[in-house]
């Protein structure tokens, strides 16, 4: 099993130095995970390291295409509360 980087990646480099399997490399148009080398951090860390530091929701997905960081998980604001949060922030 391996994780995959999608077009959402902004090439920020955060994941690359953390991978215990050296599976991540800079590539064009975005970073790439070698599916043979990636072990989803099994046995080394409780959570996949790349997905734990990636700043972009949806940029890293599992083998089934499910986002490890789904919408709202990194801003801390669930999508259905977004408008409410926007109104609160605009009022500042």
């Amino acid at each position, binding site marked *: 099993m391996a994780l995959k980087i999608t077009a959402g990646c902004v090439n*920020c480099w*955060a994941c690359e130095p953390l991978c215990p399997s050296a599976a991540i490399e800079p590539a064009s148009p975005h970073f790439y995970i070698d599916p043979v080398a990636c072990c989803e951090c099994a046995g080394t860390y409780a*959570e996949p390291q790349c997905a734990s530091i990636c700043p972009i929701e949806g940029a890293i997905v599992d083998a089934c295409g499910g986002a490890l960081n789904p919408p709202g998980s*990194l801003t*801390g604001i669930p999508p259905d509360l977004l408008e409410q949060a926007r109104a609160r*922030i*605009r009022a*500042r």
Partner: protein
Amino acid sequence: MESKQAGPERISPSNCAGRGCGGGDTLDRLPAAIRERVHNHPCFSADAHHHYARMHVAVAPACNIQCHYCNRKYDCANESRPGVVSELLEPQQAAAKVAAVAAHIPQLAVVGIAGPGDPLANPERTFATFRLIAERTPDLRLCVSTNGLALPETVDTLCRYNIEHVTVTINCLDPDIGAEIYPWVFWNNRRVRGRKGAEILIEQQQLGLERLVERGMLVKVNSVLIPGVNDQHLTEVSRAVKAKGAFLHNLMPLIAAPEHGTFYGLMGQRAPRASELRALQTACAGEMAIMRHCKQCRADAVGMLGDDRSAEFTRERIATLEIDDDAALARRAATREAIERRRQAATPALVPVATLSPPRPTTRAARIAVASSDGRRVDQHFGQAERFLVYEVDEQGERLLDDRPLARYCNGAEHCDEDDDALAPALAALADCAMVLCARIGLTPWEGLEAAGIRPNGELAMSPIEQALHAAHRELADLGALSVDEPQCATLSA
């Protein structure tokens, strides 16, 4: 030797009228021992920034936290202008670039690593760069900035290099406020969200600050003023970091525009008004030395403050240069000696410590817009500009307030498509500006701007922006448009 250099004479003291571009109240208040240490640092000593150059190398891409005012597509927003992407260098390339710049700009005194991510989240790359720089150009002093999360564990290593100062961005002490600024941090191999994450970050920042001070390192603190989030809290931050031994506090305005794609920008968080920033700076000046002439440089800036020469030192060009490191070192030493002789002759040593309050400005601030294709020079025809950079300029210096794309000011197709009303978006975008600087301008827009009370100015074509802004501010002052006694007119204070 220095005559080639644009800096010292052209950005003449008359710009700063002895007030030192806002550094006047920076260094005066520092203990003599610290003043001595930063005397030649262009970013701290207002006088030094006329004489010495600095550069940044972008070697540290990764970051270990998320700030709501940062978009990771671009350089770290704690230290750089928003929306800028620096070319990432390997440590070897960075050291070669430093050697090349140091050989061509003998006024170079300081090299900083500020990004594009967090330097201490990339310890191998950052320290390899410092080591290589120390080998080739041992006289240059180094500085580094960080969000502080990895600071405590790197203090020992930092103290091993010729590092003059460390900048830590500290926006809060209260984790509830922190949770509004930092949605998460990466800590012990996990992502920690919300208040808990902010708590860890704050603890690490404070611990790092204490350890650095213990080791005798100079520590500067940057804070971003975020209205409605930490505006009421920053005087407390100022007090606390001073008590812990930080030598300087740099208060920076939040820059949040939707097109920068930051969380704050997209959510409509407003930036502070210039008056709010100034009020806070003044309130904090009672607590400790406040820095006012910071230019929020790029993570790959090169040269004198206000005259970025990074475009001259591309990787391709550096590869073709042959550099004699020893000869360059000797040349720098001679240059420094000559500069110090000049400075000694010009000023009675250092500014006296007794100047406790900032000098009362004799003119008001003005908003001035610039048409520039590269953010460095006034190089665009008014009619071709698709965006304007808007600055707030006063005697102390200038600050970028806003990058305004004209597209944002198009109110429907009727306005923007028809020729006769092509000026409308520009007038809307520049409504609060006293002057607009461009390379050239046609007669029709000239008249339109004048009718709207905005002075067009094409005389500073191709000048570096900072220099042009100072000249423009002086011109407005000479026209009597900025005298302090006059009631603020709406166009200037909006």
